[in-house]
Every structure is written in C-alpha cells, then in structure tokens.
C-alpha cells in the first residue's frame, strides 16, 4: 500500500503518532459509501448539537392558523403539522432524541455485553452459565423483548433506552466472547501468565484491546438498529409520548393525515432511513478497514 510505504519512510517520532487508529481512518476514507455515511452522521450530530440556533420556531410552538402547510410554504422549510408546528424544527429536535437514545442504549448494551462476554470467554467455568443466559435473551424476538421490558417498567424514553440496551447485550456478549476465546489461546497471553500477571490485568490490558475491532463494528451497526427500534417503539406508542418530537412518534401522528399532509409522515421516515443507512454503511466500511488481514500485525 503506497500510504504505508510513505509511513515507513518517516522518522521515528512521526511514526509514534501514526497509530493504528489513524491508519484505520485513512483506509475508511477510501470507501466512498462510508464517507457518505460519515458525512450524514456528521450533519446529524451538528444539527442535533446546534438545534436551537437552526430554528425560527420551537418544536412545541403551535400556530393554528398555519396547519398542514406543505413543504416550503409560508417560510416553513418542511411545512407544518396538524397543529401548525414547524416540521423542520421538530425534525432536528428529533435528531437529538434519536442520537441520545441510540448512543446511550448502545453504550449501556456494550458495557453489559463486554462484562458478560469477557468473563464467559476467559473463565471456562462461567462460560456455560453466561452463554445460556445470552441464549435465553436471544430466544425472544428483539422487539417483543423490548415491549415486554417496557410493559414492566412503563412507557418513557428512559425505559426505551433500558429496553434497547438489554436487547443489545446478547449480541455484544457473543461477539466479545468469540474474540476473547481466540485471543486467550494466543501465545502472548501465555507469556503474560508466565510473568505472573493477574487475571484482571490479562483481561483488561491484553484481551480487551485486541477485540476492539469487532466491538466498534458492532456498536456502529447497533446505533442504526437502536435508532430504528426507538422509532418503532415510539410509533407503537411505547416510547416517546406526544408532543415529544421523536421521529417514530411523528410518523404515527402523521398517519391520520396521510392524504391531506403526507409530508408529516414521509419526512421523519426519510430521516430515519437516511440515519440507519449512514450507520450501516459506516459499520460496513469499518469492518473492512479494521480487517486484521489488511495489516501485518500478527
């Protein structure tokens, strides 16, 4: 690879800064679809962070003289809904909710999955028990499991986060366990044991850093799924409650106005689609970029 040759030519100090992360990122940038995905995600993050600066009307502000305006009518970029609320404003506040819910449920799911996966992968005795629990969680169809949890906890966005993170645990646990099992058999783990390193040190400093690649891919893909599930649950009335500008809830609200104001459902639908598409192509791109066969690191 030409960029690698260039890297080797540099002196030792700049080599220090060219970590694996940078190399992976450079490879990722060669994948056009992934770059497009990254671009969408970047825009999403920007509009979510700067939402208040980008709107002229708050997401809850009603104007009953301007209901069901179409796209671009009377200064409303994306029109208004049946209460005269600005769709653009609701859409970008919805991006906030989607990203926060997606990110926090993925992080919580990862924490749970990492703990279970690492313990199961490293300690043979715990493996059987942990993997049966994981199988149990896997046996439920995901959305049913989430609905069950919400039925127990009550409907709210926080409970959606909890439900989706629990649903993310088994997938993550399996991936981590698989990596941990194969890394555990590597000679450098034996070398650490012969040096007298503690189990905690081996797991955290040697196994965990070596299974980051599949975890990053999983987390990225999972972000898309988590956002979709949040919307699905809200659409069903189990997540965000009106008037929260959540995309799924917005689609549900637009259902009754499908003929008079189709943009009320179509716009949040397109937003969901683009977001999930972006996370999936970035996840795919990362999978290729992190492929260990593309780099000689043993």
């Amino acid at each position, binding site marked *: 690879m030409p960029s690698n040759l260039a890297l080797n030519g540099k002196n*030792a100090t700049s080599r220090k800064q060219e970590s694996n992360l940078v190399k992976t990122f450079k490879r990722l940038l060669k994948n056009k679809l992934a770059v497009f995905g990254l671009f969408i995600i970047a825009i999403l993050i920007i509009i979510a962070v700067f939402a208040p600066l980008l709107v002229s009307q708050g997401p809850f502000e009603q104007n009953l003289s301007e209901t069901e305006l179409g796209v671009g009518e009377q200064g409303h970029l994306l029109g208004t809904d049946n209460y005269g609320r600005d769709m653009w404003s609701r859409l970008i506040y919805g991006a906030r909710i989607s990203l926060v819910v997606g990110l926090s449920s993925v992080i919580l799911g990862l924490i749970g999955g990492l703990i279970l996966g690492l313990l199961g992968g490293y300690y043979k005795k715990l493996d059987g028990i942990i993997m049966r629990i994981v199988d149990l969680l896997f046996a439920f169809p995901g959305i049913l499991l989430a609905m069950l949890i919400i039925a127990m906890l009550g409907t709210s966005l926080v409970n959606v986060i909890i439900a989706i993170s629990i649903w993310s645990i088994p997938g993550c646990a399996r991936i981590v366990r698989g990596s941990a099992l194969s890394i555990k058999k590597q*000679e450098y783990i034996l*070398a650490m*044991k*012969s040096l007298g390193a503690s189990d905690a040190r081996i797991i955290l400093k040697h196994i965990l850093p070596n299974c980051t690649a599949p975890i990053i891919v999983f987390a990225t893909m999972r972000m898309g799924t988590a956002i979709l599930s949040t919307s699905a649950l809200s659409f069903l009335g189990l997540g965000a409650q009106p008037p929260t500008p959540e995309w799924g809830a917005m689609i549900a609200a637009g259902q009754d106005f499908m003929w008079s104001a189709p943009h009320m459902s179509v716009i949040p639908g397109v937003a969901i689609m683009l977001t999930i598409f972006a996370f999936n192509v970035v996840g795919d791109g990362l999978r290729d970029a992190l492929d260990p066969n593309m780099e000689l690191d043993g």
Partner: protein
Amino acid sequence: MTDQQPLLEVKDLKKYFPIKSGVLQRTTANVKAVENVSLQVHEGETLGIVGESGCGKSTFGRSVLGLEDITDGTIEFRGDHIEGLSKRKLKEYKKDMQMIFQDPFASLNPRQRIGDALEEVFVIHSSLSKADRQKRVRELLVEVGLQEDHYNRYPHEFSGGQRQRIGIARAIALNPSLIVCDEAVSALDVSVQAQIIRLLIDLQKRYQLTYMFISHDLGVVKHMCDRVLVMYLGTMVELGSSDQIYKNPLHPYTRALLSAIPRPIPGRKKERIKLEGDLPSASNYPTGCPFHTRCPLAQEHCKTVVPEWREVEEGHFIACHEV
C-alpha cells in the same frame, strides 16, 4: 556432577490431558503428555530437551513453570516445592523462572508498544517508579541488541529476530535464574538463529543463567547444551552430557534420531536408521516400553515390562532393556 543443591528438581512428573466424551463429559481416556519425568537442573548449566513433535517436551517445560496443572509428581525450585501452589504464592517464584516462546509473532501483544510490554514486567513484579521502569526498559533494549528508540514501536514493525530479542529482554528483565526456552530459535532463519543463540550464550555468561532448552533441532542443541535429555512419547529415553549423547548414543531411539541429522558434507553418507511405523497415539499408550512398537531391538519382554531408568556410566542414564 556437583553435590550442591540443584536449582530445579523434578520428580515423577506426570501430566495427563483427559479426553472427555458423551453427554456427561466423563473422562474416558487420558492423553499421557508427560509420563514419569524426573530430572535435576543445576545452576548455570544448559539442559537440552529433544524429541519429535508431540513427545511432551513443551508440556514438560510449561508444567515446570506452573503454566499447566500437573497430574502428579513434585517440582522443587531451590528446595521449595512449587507444585500446586496458589497463583499468588507462585508469583514470587515466577520472578525467578521465565520463558522464551517459540513464535516471536504470537508472543507479543500486537496492540501494545514494546516499551510498554517490557515495562509491564516491572509493573507486575516491582515497585519501581515510572521513570525508573522506563530507564530499565531502555537498558534492556540495548542489552539484547536493539535500540532505545524502539521503545515506542509496535511489534509489527519488527522482524522475527528482533521480536525474539524483545521476548528475550522480557524474560531476563527480572534477573531470573532459570529460563525455559521453548523452541526459542526454531521459527527463525538460520542466520538469525545463530545471532539469537550467541545472544543467549552471552547473557548466560553475564548473568549465570540456567537454561532449559527445548528444541527439535539436534544441531542447535549440540552447540548450546551441557546435558541433553531425549524424550519419546512423554517419557525419558536417555539423559547424558552432550558428548555422551552425541558421541555414544546408546538407546536405539536416540541413535535413530541422531542418524536423521542432515549432514552438510557430501560423500560422507552415514548409515541412516529408519524407524518402522508411526508414532503411537499418546491416548493409546503402548504397554511396557513405549518405544517397543518401533524399536529394531524389541524383544518379547519389552512389550510387557517398563524398562528401568538406569545409569550406564557416570551421568549417562538410559531406559532400555536391551542395551
């Protein structure tokens, strides 16, 4: 042989790997990886352990370092029993016993800078400050023939020989007395092998190291070792000084093994002893002498009676009925 206390004394070491089958995972048979190995290793010597693949030499080396739970037997290090010790108690001895691994590509964590990898040894075993640790690591790097500025590099930036030097640096970091070299040079090119062997010999002289040198390369063992143990199917076949084993091999297996060394001088063909049949499976262990299935000298009683371990001359031991 000196009369002083041996550095390491192993008595009747056995290591079986159970074969589990059925729904209940009951043990149905054992793979006898190491069967009744007893030996002493003295301070400052290099003991070679040779044998073909699967004869239990690596398992033996790992068992000695406590990396395998042994099935039976005792291991004494400087007179202290170390078999079956808890991890915490064993940690004290691990400072004194280190290992160099076969595969220089697999024995270093690919995501850890080598400076950090070496520093970790001191984090585990000493209370040195960060600055002192880094100073020691830089000294170690120079000591094994690398450069100080290699500190911040990742393993994939090194060649096999350089990586093996890092492995050696890690093993000598804590000034151990015993180092088990498990096929330490087998994965390297011949020219690099020579450099690494020279490094090992230099370090031995400088620090009075004791090596247990596990290898299938008889030429390297002849060059490196003071005494040689020949193993076959987990058992000891012949033990003696390097001279005794190479000039006067007594056991038919040792003879066959030595006759298989390729000779670089053309025209001086030596009679090659060819063994019949394959290595028996260690799970289906032969009765009597383990070598009787392939031995050219085998008699009826070899099939039933396990040969005694006897001394045929000063320091030269053998397990055979017929010689």
